[in-house]
């Protein structure tokens, strides 16, 4: 973006706390989410799922179910064409179609408990449910494997007979559950460890955790008789879903229109499609609209949690706290299909530090679990849990303040990370100084209380975004963009457009386009929406302003260059241009139909310049020494947010991420029985934090405007989930004098640790 002068002026709208435009509908129950659409003649779809973790599907007999009155269509694997495998390495946008078609409907084998095997559309939910019981599936049950470390063993049951580990030399001849081994290195860690005065090596374990959005997946598919299809879907990216559906069903993209409903939370988990292709095929077969809504049980069993992981961390440091070498081995579970986010972990886990010698190896491992989906800074929190825990231990061993240890090693402008990326300005040192100045850092602690600190690094994304802006006859403005609004992004889009135009925020209405009304817009994910789509919105608005200036120039008989746009008015660019009364947006809009047509602007961009997004968390906890219960008492989140367009919603991202992290640290986990079945597939026993579990979450927004964005925006959504696991674990360690390296830090584990000897500390 060339025109960055605005970074210094005082904003009228941007940065102010405005009520979101979609808010009233959401507090009155009017907003329509995935499950809220009802169409005439609509059928209800339900999915039959495998009770087995690993089984060959020998035969599926739907004849009885089809005869049940009210059943209008049934689909199985036979209703979906098989897909080719794509070539490695797989970028984020090309989920392998061979995998994806098997995620939505099992083909040769059921690969996890809850794997779809058939789907029914019927005139009522109860009939559809009844029909599922009449489908006979002949399974040949196979041995299964749940734990990724077990899945790596030579005698483990193999999920995919044609999967040979990538990234090892020589190329293996036996199939493996390890899809790939990924490496990154810088310098020489052997030399680095040789220079170290203290070396700490620890193994950490985390469990699979679910995004836990409150709205289950839901869609309505309506196939028309002309071969086109409309899909209403709760999704983080309807353009991506449309393209994927076209590929899965062998349809042309132009025949498919996706409309994004309001979305009840996603956190990465609503990027993939699950029921949509099934609903579309059912609708095609039944010639009626079909609604598919998952139950909570299905959400837990069959949609992506994020990877559980085993992580080995080894860090060496000199007496003065300078790190001399850092290594990591990452064993990540991908679920039944490849795709564990080891690349992101490798790229981020040590990246806020200026390290000379680093070596990281990551393993992407399949096992009989649902395929993982992205979850907020996917892949990074588990690795950060290990790194930040070990740094805490090193600080203790060396008797150095834990923030000072980070300061000693903080990345700065010019630092090169393990992937070779050289940083521009990066405000990590400034953030650490802010932490030290904060009253929370020095506040006294009571008995059985402890304080923990951790930092986190994430790269927010850019990518494809489109926006279109229409100035209406009366001077109001309709802005059209393509990102489903999960957390108030429409408010930020309105704010940026209003700021550019110099008109009140209330005069701008933002709509989310369907996939046929706007160019391809990438996901609401990767902390990219306000950054990338915001950029498109600003560019589209500036294009409309250009038209406004041209119209004013025509009215005044001057050139467009002689007109400037200021606070909602076209004005002569200088006194030399002439003495013309400023023309407002509404005056220009009113004249527009007679001056060549309506005023509009649009932009289709690939937002680049994605950059680091760093955060630091400080937490106090109290541990009940007799029960191991951990109560978070105080929590402060520090984050470089670039510039907060909607400060309320930036704070909300920081608070929400921190609390998800608390849940991850203390209670959340997938628990399987010996048959490979999930035993806690509900909110009763998959324990996300409730209101009484957590304190207020204080936020410190550090606003160092991002030079790559016209308003200085930095993506903020994901970073806040990176530090809390380690911060909480460090606080627990500080409170009880024992270190726990396995998440969740459940009371039984803590009570057990309390019966063991406390760790020795150099500082004491």
């Amino acid at each position, binding site marked *: 973006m060339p025109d960055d002068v605005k970074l210094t002026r005082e904003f009228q709208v941007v940065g102010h706390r405005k009520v979101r435009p979609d808010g009233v509908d959401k*507090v009155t129950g009017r907003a329509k989410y995935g499950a809220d659409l009802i169409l005439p003649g609509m059928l209800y779809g339900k999915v039959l799922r495998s009770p087995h973790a690993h089984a060959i599907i020998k035969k599926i007999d739907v004849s009885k179910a089809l005869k049940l009155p009210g059943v209008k269509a049934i689909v199985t694997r036979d209703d979906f064409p098989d897909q080719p495998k794509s070539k490695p390495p797989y970028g984020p946008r090309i989920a392998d179609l061979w995998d994806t078609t098997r995620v939505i409907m099992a083909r040769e084998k059921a690969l996890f408990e809850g794997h779809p095997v058939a789907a029914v559309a019927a005139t009522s939910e109860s009939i559809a449910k009844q029909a599922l019981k009449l489908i006979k599936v002949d399974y040949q049950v196979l041995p299964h494997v749940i734990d990724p470390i077990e899945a790596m063993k030579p005698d483990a049951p193999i999920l995919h007979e044609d999967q040979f580990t990538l990234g090892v030399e020589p190329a293996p001849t036996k199939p493996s559950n390890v899809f790939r081994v990924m490496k990154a290195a810088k310098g020489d860690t052997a030399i680095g460890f040789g220079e170290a005065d203290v070396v700490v090596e620890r193994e950490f374990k985390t469990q699979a955790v679910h995004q836990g959005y*409150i*709205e289950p997946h839901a869609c309505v598919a309506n196939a028309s008789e002309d071969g086109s299809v409309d899909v209403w879907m709760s999704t983080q990216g309807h353009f991506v879903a449309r393209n994927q559906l076209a590929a899965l069903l062998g349809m042309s993209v132009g025949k498919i229109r996706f409309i994004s409903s*309001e979305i009840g939370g996603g956190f990465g988990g609503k990027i993939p499609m699950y029921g949509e292709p099934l609903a579309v095929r059912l609708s095609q077969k039944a010639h009626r609209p079909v609604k598919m809504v998952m139950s909570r049980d299905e959400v837990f069993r069959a949609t992506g949690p994020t990877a559980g992981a085993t992580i080995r961390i080894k860090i060496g440091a000199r007496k003065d706290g300078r790190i001399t070498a850092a290594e990591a081995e990452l064993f990540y579970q991908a679920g039944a299909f490849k795709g564990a986010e080891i690349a992101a972990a490798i790229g981020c886990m040590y990246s806020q530090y200026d390290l000379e010698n680093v070596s990281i190896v990551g393993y992407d491992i399949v096992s009989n679990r649902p395929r993982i989906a992205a979850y907020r800074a996917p892949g990074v929190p588990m690795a950060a849990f290990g790194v930040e825990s070990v740094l805490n231990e090193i600080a203790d061993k060396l008797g150095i303040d834990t923030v000072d240890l980070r300061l000693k090693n903080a990345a700065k402008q010019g630092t090169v990370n393990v992937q070779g990326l050289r940083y521009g300005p990066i405000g990590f040192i400034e953030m650490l100084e802010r932490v030290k100045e904060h009253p929370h850092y020095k506040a006294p602690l009571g008995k059985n209380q402890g304080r923990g600190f951790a930092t986190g690094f994430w790269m927010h994304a850019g990518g494809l975004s489109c926006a279109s802006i229409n100035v209406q006859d009366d001077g109001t403005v309709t802005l059209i963009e393509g990102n489903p609004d999960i957390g108030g992004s429409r408010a930020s889009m309105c704010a940026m457009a209003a700021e550019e135009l110099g008109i009140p925020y209330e005069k701008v209405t933002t709509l989310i386009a369907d996939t046929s009304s706007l160019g391809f817009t990438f996901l609401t994910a990767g902390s990219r929406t306000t950054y990338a789509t915001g950029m498109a919105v600003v560019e589209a608005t500036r294009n409309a302003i250009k038209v406004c200036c041209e119209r004013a120039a025509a009215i005044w008989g001057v050139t467009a260059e002689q007109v400037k746009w200021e606070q909602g008015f076209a004005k002569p660019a200088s006194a030399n241009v002439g003495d013309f009364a400023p023309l407002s947006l509404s005056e220009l809009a009113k004249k527009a139909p007679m001056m060549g047509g309506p005023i509009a602007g649009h932009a289709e961009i690939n937002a680049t310049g994605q950059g680091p997004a760093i955060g630091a968390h400080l937490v106090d906890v109290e541990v009940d020494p007799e029960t191991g219960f951990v109560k978070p008492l105080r929590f402060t989140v520090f984050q470089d947010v670039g510039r907060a367009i909607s400060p309320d919603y930036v704070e*909300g991202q920081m608070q929400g991420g921190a609390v998800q992290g608390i849940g991850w640290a203390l209670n959340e986990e997938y628990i399987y029985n010996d048959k490979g079945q999930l035993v806690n597939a509900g909110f009763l026993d998959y324990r996300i934090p*409730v209101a009484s579990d957590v304190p207020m979450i204080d936020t410190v927004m550090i606003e160092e405007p991002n030079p790559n964005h016209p308003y200085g925006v930095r993506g903020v959504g994901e970073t806040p989930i990176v530090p809390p696991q380690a911060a909480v674990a460090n606080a627990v360690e500080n409170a009880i004098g024992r270190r726990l390296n396995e998440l969740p830090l459940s009371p039984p584990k803590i009570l057990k640790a309390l019966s063991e000897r406390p760790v020795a500390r150099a500082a004491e």
Partner: protein
Amino acid sequence: MARHHITTTVNGDIREVLVETTQSLLDVLRNELLLTGTKEGCGTGDCGACSVMLDGRLVCSCLVLGVEADGKEIDTIEGMAQGEELHPLQRNFLEHAALQCGICTPGFLIAARALLEKNPSPTETEVRFWLAGNLCRCTGYDKIVRAVMATAKELRETTHA
């Protein structure tokens, strides 16, 4: 499947509807009466998204059979605003940015109103424990609790004025 004819008062309107025995009140509200403001997050009483008032008492509508609503009065989110005027809780939820995705919001509002009717001066702890049955995954609860506290204060001041 046998159906039962029930007559129930929803947000002051008398409604007659045929319900299946196994249909929950939530299903009846959403699918039969087309009142989709009440949400399903779990269907097992663990998330509170389906909170409604049943004869003046806060319940999860997923844990009530539709047939049990016969002769009862039900209040849902659709009846919370009075015409153009939002309930102070609704207004404060907006002003305090107490929602992100908004799927849990109707349940929180119904539950919070029930709290303030019972206890006009709740402490932060009381608010948190009363609302513990309403799950929110986006906000970390901070702004929700603040919005409820602010509403309580506002209502106390209006009553005393």
